[in-house]
């Protein structure tokens, strides 16, 4: 079966007036259909850049990106992107916000509108269609952002720390909701996060990245009982802590490697 995402020897150099910086070096990764992969790493490992490259927003300096076996050029409709904050447009109602993807891809019609209404309903947002974003709580707004992303029915979801701006309780609830929704719809997902326990709880595979420049350090398969449990309960599964420590050590080492090099 073709992988949903495949990066082959991707290298990216960031340029501005002051400098050119190697952000990602020779990074290869392959993600199977339906797989939920988390990318963790110290800041400066190019996580967000990597997502932008997969999304087709940024063209890598070198290397190839394949989505479903096709080399990508620019953005495609297969991909949905969720940002750190909801970034709902304050001048649009909840319904208009949720429909913007459909509007831009010219798919807005009665059928798709109905789909969006069902999605909103399913996320416990029924009745908020005519409200404006500032009238909703942070958790609700992030759920609207999820509906906005799902409305165009992307196969692949890129999640750029979508929980990091939420309070702890909301974060746990939203993790469960997102994982459930994605599993039920057999979506493939790539999550970028700082939170190790979140990464292990929600995903099938955790990839630890090196920083400066970003590259794959090590890949951890999440064991079955943790994987199949809901994120909230996954944290209580046997083996969760062991895995946490193992990944933690790897992360520490990737951080230290750079510091050692800088001090020398």
């Amino acid at each position: 079966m073709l992988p949903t995402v495949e990066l082959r020897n991707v290298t990216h150099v960031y340029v501005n007036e002051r400098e050119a910086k190697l952000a990602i070096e020779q990074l290869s990764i392959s993600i199977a259909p339906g797989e939920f992969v988390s990318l963790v790493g110290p800041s400066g490992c190019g996580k967000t850049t990597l997502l932008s490259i997969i999304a087709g927003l940024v063209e890598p300096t070198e290397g190839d990106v394949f989505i479903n076996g096709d080399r990508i050029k620019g953005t495609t409709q297969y991909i949905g992107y969720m940002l750190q904050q909801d970034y709902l447009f304050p001048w649009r109602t909840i319904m208009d916000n949720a429909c913007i993807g459909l509007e831009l891809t010219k798919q807005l019609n009665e059928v798709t509108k109905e789909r969006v209404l069902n999605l909103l309903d399913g996320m416990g947002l029924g009745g908020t269609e005519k409200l404006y974003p500032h009238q909703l709580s942070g958790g609700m707004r992030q759920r609207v952002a999820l509906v906005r992303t799902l409305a165009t029915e992307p196969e692949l979801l890129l999640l750029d720390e979508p929980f990091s701006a939420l309070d702890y309780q909301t974060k746990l609830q939203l993790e469960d909701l997102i994982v459930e929704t994605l599993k039920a719809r057999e979506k493939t997902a790539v999550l970028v996060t700082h939170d190790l326990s979140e990464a292990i709880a929600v995903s099938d595979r955790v990839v630890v990245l090196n920083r400066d420049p970003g590259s794959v350090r090590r890949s951890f398969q999440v064991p079955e009982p943790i994987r199949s449990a809901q994120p909230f309960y996954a944290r209580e599964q046997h083996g969760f802590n062991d895995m946490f420590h193992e990944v933690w050590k790897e992360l520490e080492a990737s951080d230290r490697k750079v510091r050692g090099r800088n001090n020398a």
Partner: protein
Amino acid sequence: MPNHHTSGAPYRSAALVKKTYDDFRKQERKFKLRVSATQLFILIAFIIGWELGGRLKWIDPLLFSYPSKVGYQIWKDMMDGSLWPHLGMTVGETIVGFMLGTILGTLLAIIIWWSRFLAKVLDPYMVVFNSMPKVALGPLFIVGFGPGFTAIVVTTLSITVMITTLVVYNAFREVDPNYVKVVQVFGGRRGVIFKKVILPSSYPAIISTLKVNVGLSWVGVIVGEFLVSKVGLGYLIIYGFQVFNFTLVLASLVLIAIVATFMYVVVEHLERRWLRK
């Protein structure tokens, strides 16, 4: 009656909520009333003080006149019809200058937002032009466009366009790039980004330049009329000054204040309608 207490408690808190709200409303009303009363008092005190000061010669009545004289001047000019052409001309020039200034300024901002190259090229010229005292160009406009409506509108534009462009362009650039990303992910190109993100999120900035432009347009129009015209409130001011009729000067000023306030109120109303909050 063991339930007496539990059934009474929610009723009592509901009453407390209502009472707290009512008290709050009452206090707010009182506060607003006090503000309005004080405002009115200041206005009346000012007019009475001015009237008395003029009549009792505490201030020079030749220079400062007094309200009843100013009022009579306005009344008389209204009745014999000599005021209307002046008022109409000035208000027309101001409204045209104000609208054109805002529209042209915003269009220019859109153009330089579109092209990074143009933005960079034009940057020093805009800065220089903006820091120049543009009314100094007045004589040029008068010779170029002939003494009249066009020259005065152009003088107004020279004051309003550049500042509008700079403010609106800045608002365009300050839009959070993540909002742009939302649209880009769905394949939106530059035109779509502008229509769906940049423009709507800059409405507040555009509105606030409207407010600034009300004031600037009046400056442009009056200065323009000082320089050249045969009609308009600016002409009346200059004429009054030349014949030493300061009552006429003050009457023109009072009219300008009234019309300018009215324009400001219209813009504010537009703001509320447009931003829906």
